[in-house]
């Protein structure tokens, strides 16, 4: 009976304006990247742009540098955010409503202003611009975005698992590594995915806090597209295409990881 009614009333047409804008402003531009990546100045098919990306040593070191910066800063952020989330989700801190909010609030403040504030403090403390300062800046910027998903998972965790673990004889450390940590992995993965790839685009932070050596691949792509010369659009598109493939790889890996970790404890427990 429900099915019959659903057939009568299906306002799927409401999605059409969004569908149209998505095609024009998201899908077509991605196709344009593909087209520009594989064509030369005269409009013929070429692999020259990709050859240029991969044979140019500065591009390659730039890409490796970016992966390094993203990995190091993500790891540091996790090492600070996880314990913070763990403490905030535990007794008696979970009863203090405003406390957790204080850690998340910076999310709502314009990041350029926050980075400017941080730089002012670090310079006052005598620090020089460079890799270290840039990594501190990236950690500072992304911290609330990594903290939030981990905190959400930890504070929604079914506490009876912990009691069961203790009743069965595990001590606090054993309970943490065998129960809490595995159950919180989905939060960690979503925190990492909020940070790792976005760091590739965070050239504003490296420009503000790094030296001449410090930059991420996003800066390179940005420099290829702010000139008004068409010559760079090809190689720039090729480089973007490489980034696009990287995004897909990261997405697939994180999906597989999430599925794997979800399988075990999901049985019988609430998700």
């Amino acid at each position, binding site marked *: 009976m429900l099915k019959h*009614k659903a057939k009568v*009333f*299906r*306002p*799927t047409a*409401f*999605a059409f*304006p*969004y*569908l149209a*804008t*998505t095609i024009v*402003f*998201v899908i*077509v*531009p*991605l196709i*344009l*990247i593909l087209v520009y990546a594989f064509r030369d100045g005269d409009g013929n098919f070429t692999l020259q742009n990709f050859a240029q990306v991969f044979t140019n040593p500065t591009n390659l070191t730039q890409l490796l540098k970016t992966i390094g910066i993203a990995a190091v800063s993500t790891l540091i952020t996790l090492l*600070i955010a996880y*314990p*913070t989330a763990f*403490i*905030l989700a535990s007794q008696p*801190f979970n009863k203090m*409503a*405003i406390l957790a*909010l*204080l*850690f998340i*609030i910076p999310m709502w*403040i314009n*990041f*350029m*202003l*926050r980075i*400017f*504030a*941080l730089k*002012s*403090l670090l*310079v*006052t403390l005598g620090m020089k611009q460079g890799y270290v300062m840039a990594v501190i800046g990236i950690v500072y910027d992304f*911290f609330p975005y990594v903290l939030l998903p981990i905190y959400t998972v930890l504070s929604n965790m079914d506490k009876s698992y912990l009691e069961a673990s203790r009743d069965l004889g595990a001590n606090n450390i054993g309970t943490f590594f065998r129960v809490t940590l595995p159950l919180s992995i989905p939060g960690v993965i979503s925190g990492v995915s909020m940070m790792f790839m976005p760091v*590739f*685009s965070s*050239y*504003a932070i490296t420009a*503000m806090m790094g030296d001449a050596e410090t930059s991420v691949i*996003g800066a390179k*792509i*940005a420099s290829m597209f*702010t000139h*008004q010369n068409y010559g760079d659009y090809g190689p720039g598109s090729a480089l*973007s295409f490489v*980034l*696009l493939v*990287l*995004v897909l790889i990261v*997405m697939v890996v994180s999906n597989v990881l999430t599925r794997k970790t979800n399988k075990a404890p999901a049985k019988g427990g609430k998700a």
Partner: protein
Amino acid sequence: MNKKSEKISLIAKWAFLIIVLAGIYLPLIMIILYSFSASREVGGEFGNFTFALYKNLFNDTKLLTATKNTIIIGAASASIATILGTTASVGIHYMRTRAKTAMDAASQITIVNAEIVTAMAFFLLIIVLRDAIKIPVQFGLGWLIVCHTIITTPYVILTVSPRLKQLNPNLLEASMDLGAGPMRSLIKVMLPQLAGAMVASFAMAFTLSLDDFVVTNINSAGSGVDTISTYVYAGIKRNMPTDIRALSTIIFVIVLGGLIVFNIVKNKKAKENLHK
């Protein structure tokens, strides 16, 4: 565990939280302090307490224009995104499984993609529209509103869709059984129930837009339109204008104060409802 070690662990936890909080707030406090100093650099000699930077700020047309642009782009794109995203959510909600999966995947593209790639995809699009198809479009405020709408709409869908799933479908059917047409039922029955989610998604789209740098930086391309983010970024190459400290202080105080008050009121209300 005995009482003493419990106490030590509690102190250690507080110490950790306070160190992290200090890391988060010391930079902001420093800017707030130095917004009352005429010192050229933050951290320089403080000198006399003064409102000079605030006076400068209200005469600084460039920075004020950048602030105005930021708010115009944010408000316009968040309004359009809220309408576009809410109607899309309703449409997607009634789609069959396969179409639904396809739409969900399409709406995820800009969320998972590297922002720099999204930014230059917009850039290529307007170049092709302008130079190859000869449509009279140009970089500027309007184009930035379009770009921001596209990148924030998926977040509106993410916020509204779960709420739609919770709605009682019988209410809509009851309304139609009682003789209201489908359109009227949607507006009179479904829309009021979505109001909360729409407000939340507007707020989210607005803050995402305010915070954006990469898309704005690349798609303002020579149009001279600055937002707060791109204006501060440009300050890296020349000297950083001192009145940014005054603007930062105003923004910090509004955001921090607003959110804390909002949450205290919300918690109080939740508690009152619990007692009822």
